[in-house]
């Protein structure tokens, strides 16, 4: 369909449509475009409804290189005519493709590229944070185990079991002391070893607690929410009572997705955009984390990302 229509053909079509004589129409078309030219020279801008805007744009001098000779040449400044089609004309012409819209590429397709473009550190972190940490915690446990032989079983335990272990050890320690009067060095040795073990265990759990305090929210909260969902399937509103809420917001905060560690140069807006998909939802992070001043957040701060459910209205 690639063909040219001349001014005369255009005029002929118009004449058919309006019923005005061909000659008059041709005359009109000539005057129409001549007026545009005059208007351009006068105002540097002509708007024609249904067609578009013609504009004169000044181009200043610039230097360039002659492609053939490699010499530097100077392109003189000039004015050029630009044409921006009216919305109606633009849409009409683009009708075959009108059903297409600009789409955000899905994460699955973009990830490989994203990792190449962005710093590779940032992207994996928020996702891997909640999961690997509980897994890595059990790992350090086996290390101290091989040394003290007697009680390897009780150690991979939570604070509760730790108490039990301490209780169990206490009588053991006490017993040898009573019997020790006439006993051999072996028993003393055993006591000392036990004391060392107890001390080691205490020290170990002390350090572990420190570590757990940091990650506790990620470890503890998630299972709680899941259990509740399985048991009673509470409505988002009921779940929402456990968390601070944004007044008048469109979403309930019903839990926690993960913990995000602030990087240098990151702001809450950026995190909201990245984790929640919309920087307008920053308010939810502020409320969820009880942040007083959203503008000042130190790098390395742990920001909890809320799980959100849209309110039904």
């Amino acid at each position: 369909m690639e063909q040219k229509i001349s001014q005369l053909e255009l005029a002929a079509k118009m004449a058919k449509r309006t019923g005005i004589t061909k000659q008059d129409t041709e005359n009109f078309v000539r005057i129409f475009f001549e007026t545009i030219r005059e208007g351009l020279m006068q105002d540097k801008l002509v708007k024609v409804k249904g067609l578009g805007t013609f504009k004169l744009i000044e181009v200043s001098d610039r230097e360039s290189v002659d492609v053939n000779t490699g010499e530097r040449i100077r392109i003189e400044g000039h004015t050029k005519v630009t044409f921006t089609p009216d919305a109606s004309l633009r849409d009409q012409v683009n009708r075959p493709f009108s059903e297409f819209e600009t789409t955000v590429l899905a994460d699955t397709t973009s990830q490989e590229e994203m990792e190449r473009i962005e710093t590779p550190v940032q992207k994996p972190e928020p996702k891997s944070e909640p999961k690997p940490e509980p897994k890595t915690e059990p790992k350090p446990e086996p290390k101290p185990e091989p040394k003290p032989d007697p009680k390897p079983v009780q150690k991979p335990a939570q604070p509760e079991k730790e108490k039990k272990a301490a209780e169990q050890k206490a009588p053991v320690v006490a017993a040898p002391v009573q019997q020790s009067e006439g006993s051999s060095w072996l028993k003393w040795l055993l006591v000392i070893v036990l004391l060392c073990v107890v001390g080691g265990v205490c020290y170990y759990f002390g350090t572990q607690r420190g570590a757990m305090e940091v990650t506790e929210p990620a470890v503890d909260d998630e299972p709680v929410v899941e259990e509740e969902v399985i048991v009673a399937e509470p409505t988002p509103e009921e779940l929402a009572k456990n968390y601070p809420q944004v007044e008048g917001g469109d979403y309930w905060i019903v839990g926690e997705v993960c913990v995000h560690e602030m990087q240098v140069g990151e702001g809450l807006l950026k995190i909201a955009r990245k984790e929640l998909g919309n920087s307008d939802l920053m308010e939810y992070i502020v409320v969820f984390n009880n942040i007083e001043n959203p503008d000042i957040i130190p790098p390395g701060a742990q920001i909890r990302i809320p799980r959100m459910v849209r309110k039904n209205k």
Partner: protein
Amino acid sequence: MNNKEFLSSVMRKGQFPSRVVNQQVAALVSELTAALEDEQTVSISSFGNFEVKKRLERVIVNPTTGQRMLVPPKLVVAFKPSQILKSKI
């Protein structure tokens, strides 16, 4: 120069009654649009050519968010001023 001023200066220049001008402009615009819709080039002597160009789809990256977006292919109207128009301006 907006549409109103433009139409009145067309009227003055061609000594047309305003009814005729309105009718003719409407016809011109719709015929031009129809021609462009068929991907035909409309050439107006001593003014320039209106033609339709295809733009391929492309991926853009929002520099602030790093979000990648796919811009669909589209057809756009391009205007290429003639040498006569260029030299007059």
